[in-house]
């Protein structure tokens, strides 16, 4: 019996040693991440571009975040641990905050800090780029040290998801006040797993592990972010081992890595949320007739585009929302049917088709030129002659932002991201309130959809909300203010020695899971 005890103790000791060694083995190393652009400014309030904001979130975290896998529940805690909508007044939300958390400068994180940051976002003087995204918030009240009350102007079911939107970061109020709004980005202080060290413009950003991180010290010692604008150079740097993670990999290279595992590079394909479609100006000529719009949807072979251009890494759009969105339903899929397309065109009075101009901004989206050319070909097959006009992105954007009277767009290729995974941004822009200069430059509006969009905001249970949103999805697909194409696949790559590394559905390095990322040392 004694011997057995001794053996057991010995085994336990051995087990603990192995575990401890395993944990020890995970510590250390610097992760070098290559993005396509330099981060313009290290402050969520003034920065744009989701991957850029994702890096900032490693330092200054948010209250909530969307589920990185796109699964349920859609919104997960970060600095807020739980939240509820007041049963008496749906405009009132209570957020419970994580206790005992400190900013990198030692300032305690609490309800005051949350109030300070939301008010900073909303204050016009700040000049926040995404101020409108939080304009539904009326006021923020401190209930106690770790409880904050957020009151919206109207009932707004999407609030927790909206707060997960990247421009909302919780910064140390002391540091913001010390440096001032405009200079805060030079030494940002957050609660994240990494601390900001320096930003050499156009060259690199260096972050170092936060020893006192509330989730435990991260495995990595440091993260370096490099801007490498040219995709070919980005991938060669990855292959040469100068970087370990490369964002935005062209499908042909992804194929090469999959077929040649000896290169030691893994492809990351997080779930998708960006809807890629050809917007149709429903106030223009033939597109006034929904039958024409439906016909164009039947005319394009989405499956072939996905198979040949995107290696089958995504699926065709069957809803105005992506499958990762809250309340998504496959509402209607326009299968490839050129005969039906021709019949519908004839019925609408265009048996010989018509001529139309398609604008797009090449280089903005993955394989955009190839997709536009494919669409041009398919439409030609049913008699619609498409003149393709490529424009530099800023000029294209200026064209899109023009109000109806001045807007010259007929057809345009665009991608709408859904960084909150919430129907509010998922279907909200299909309303008159979002007409250009807002997102909706199809100038689409359906009175029933308008009513339902308002109704889903006021819904207090998820079932009720999803019921309404389901109907909206069906109506929009039926009205077809676009040629529904596909959900843009995310293709990134990492070297095989990088373990437990997650890029989320929203194209961000997950601000919580990054703690567990580690680099396997060479044997």
């Amino acid at each position, binding site marked *: 019996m004694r011997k057995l005890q001794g053996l057991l103790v010995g085994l336990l000791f051995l087990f603990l040693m192995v575990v401890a060694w395993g944990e020890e083995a995970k510590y250390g190393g610097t992760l070098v991440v290559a993005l396509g652009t330099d981060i313009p400014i290290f402050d969520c309030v003034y920065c744009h571009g989701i991957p850029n904001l994702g890096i900032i979130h490693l330092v200054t975290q948010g209250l909530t975040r969307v589920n990185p896998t796109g699964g349920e529940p859609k919104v997960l805690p970060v600095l807020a641990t739980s939240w509820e909508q007041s049963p008496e007044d749906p405009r009132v939300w209570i957020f419970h905050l994580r206790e005992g958390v400190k900013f990198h400068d030692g300032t305690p994180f609490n309800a005051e800090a949350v109030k300070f940051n939301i008010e900073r976002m909303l204050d016009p003087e700040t000049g926040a780029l*995404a101020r409108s*995204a939080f304009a539904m918030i009326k006021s923020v009240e401190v209930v106690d040290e770790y409880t904050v009350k957020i009151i919206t102007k109207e009932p707004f079911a999407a609030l927790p998801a909206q707060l997960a939107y990247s421009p909302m970061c919780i910064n140390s109020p002391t540091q913001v006040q010390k440096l001032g709004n405009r200079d805060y980005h030079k030494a940002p202080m957050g609660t994240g797993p990494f601390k900001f060290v320096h930003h050499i413009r156009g060259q690199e950003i260096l972050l170092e592990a936060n020893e006192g991180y509330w989730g435990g010290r991260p495995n990595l010692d440091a993260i370096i972010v490099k801007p490498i604008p040219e995709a070919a150079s980005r991938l*060669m740097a990855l292959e040469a081992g100068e970087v370990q993670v490369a964002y935005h990999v062209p499908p042909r290279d992804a194929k090469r890595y999959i077929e040649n595992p000896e290169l030691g590079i893994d492809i990351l394909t997080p779930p998708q949320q960006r809807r890629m479609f050809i917007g149709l100006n429903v106030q223009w000529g033939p597109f006034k007739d929904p039958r024409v719009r439906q016909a164009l949807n039947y005319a394009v072979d989405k499956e072939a585009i996905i198979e040949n251009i995107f290696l089958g890494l995504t699926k065709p759009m069957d809803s105005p929302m992506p499958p990762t969105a809250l309340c998504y339903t496959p509402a209607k899929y326009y299968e490839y049917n050129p005969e039906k397309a021709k019949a519908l065109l004839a019925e609408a009075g265009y048996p010989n088709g018509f001529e139309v101009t398609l604008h797009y901004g090449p280089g903005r989206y993955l394989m955009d030129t190839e997709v536009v050319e494919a669409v041009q070909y398919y439409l030609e097959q049913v008699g619609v002659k498409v003149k393709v006009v490529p424009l*530099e992105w800023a000029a294209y954007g200026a064209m899109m932002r023009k109000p109806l009277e001045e807007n010259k767009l007929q057809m345009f290729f665009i991608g709408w991201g859904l960084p909150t995974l919430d129907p509010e941004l998922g279907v909200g822009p299909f309303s008159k309130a979002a007409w250009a*200069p807002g997102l909706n430059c199809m100038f689409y509006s359906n009175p029933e959809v308008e009513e339902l969009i308002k109704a889903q905001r006021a819904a207090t249970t998820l079932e009720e909300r999803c019921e309404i949103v389901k109907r909206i999805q069906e109506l929009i697909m039926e009205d077809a203010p676009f040629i529904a194409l596909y959900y843009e696949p995310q293709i990134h790559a990492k070297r095989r020695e990088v373990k437990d590394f997650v890029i989320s559905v929203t194209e961000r390095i997950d601000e919580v899971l990054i703690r567990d990322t580690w680099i396997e040392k060479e044997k």
Partner: protein
Amino acid sequence: MGRYILYRLFLTLFVLVGITILVFAMIRLVPGDPAELLADQWATKEQIEFLRRTWGLDKPLLIQYLVFVGNLLHGNLGESIASNMPVAYEIAMRFPNTLKLAVAGMVIAVVIGGIAGIVSATKPYSLFDNVAMVLALIGVSTPAFWLGLMMILLFSVKLNWLPCTGADTLKHLVLPGLTLGLLAAGIIARQTRSSMLETLQQDYITTARAKGLREAAVIYRHALKNALIPVVTVVGLQFGRLLGGTVLVETVFSWPGMGRLMVDSIFTRDYPVIQGAVLVFATAFSLINLGVDLLYGFIDPRIKYE
């Protein structure tokens, strides 16, 4: 001489004023503005208008220009819209990198191009001449982009000798410097060769040979010195071009220089940065031209500046 330099600098001032007006007008005539670009997807008309006001873009163009010039006279290039940083800082972070790259490229180009040109000219239509001139032609017509990628593929990915991104050490300078240098060497080689050939046919070269000078002395002391003027002109022009930042090479090697700053700023319509960068280019270019003109005087004492 001193008066000449002052006079040239005075003229440069006019060039710069002209350039500011041109750039200022041009970037504002192109469609798209920073407010439309940077405002996020929820942005309302009011929000876009608000951002425009914040950045002073709602004012009439003339007022905007006067504000810009007024600040300029105080030595202030304004602030970047995308980064909130002073434009002078953005440029100061990049210009040294561009200068490093341009100097490295030029040194390589002058050494390789110069030697190839001289040797070719002394042995015209020889095997060396033919091979060198074909290589020079390839150098002139190779896209920088392609050559850069091939360099990375060979020296970084396959051989693992040199880094392909970053700008910290001398090692980082080798590949982009070589890429730029090889491309510029072609032009310099061809210019040196033709200029040398012309000079070698002059009577004074025949005289030099007739009085029994060593061939090396004939070539370096008598021919090369006289053949240098067109070569220096080409080198000066090339150097000016390189100082403007070589967008393609900087993009391939992720080199944080002026070219990329400029292109990024054009894409986001960061007006103050575009204006500041163009002003720096124009100044650099003017000064180099002045330098080249002064060099003529040293090379050829017959040229005098009054």
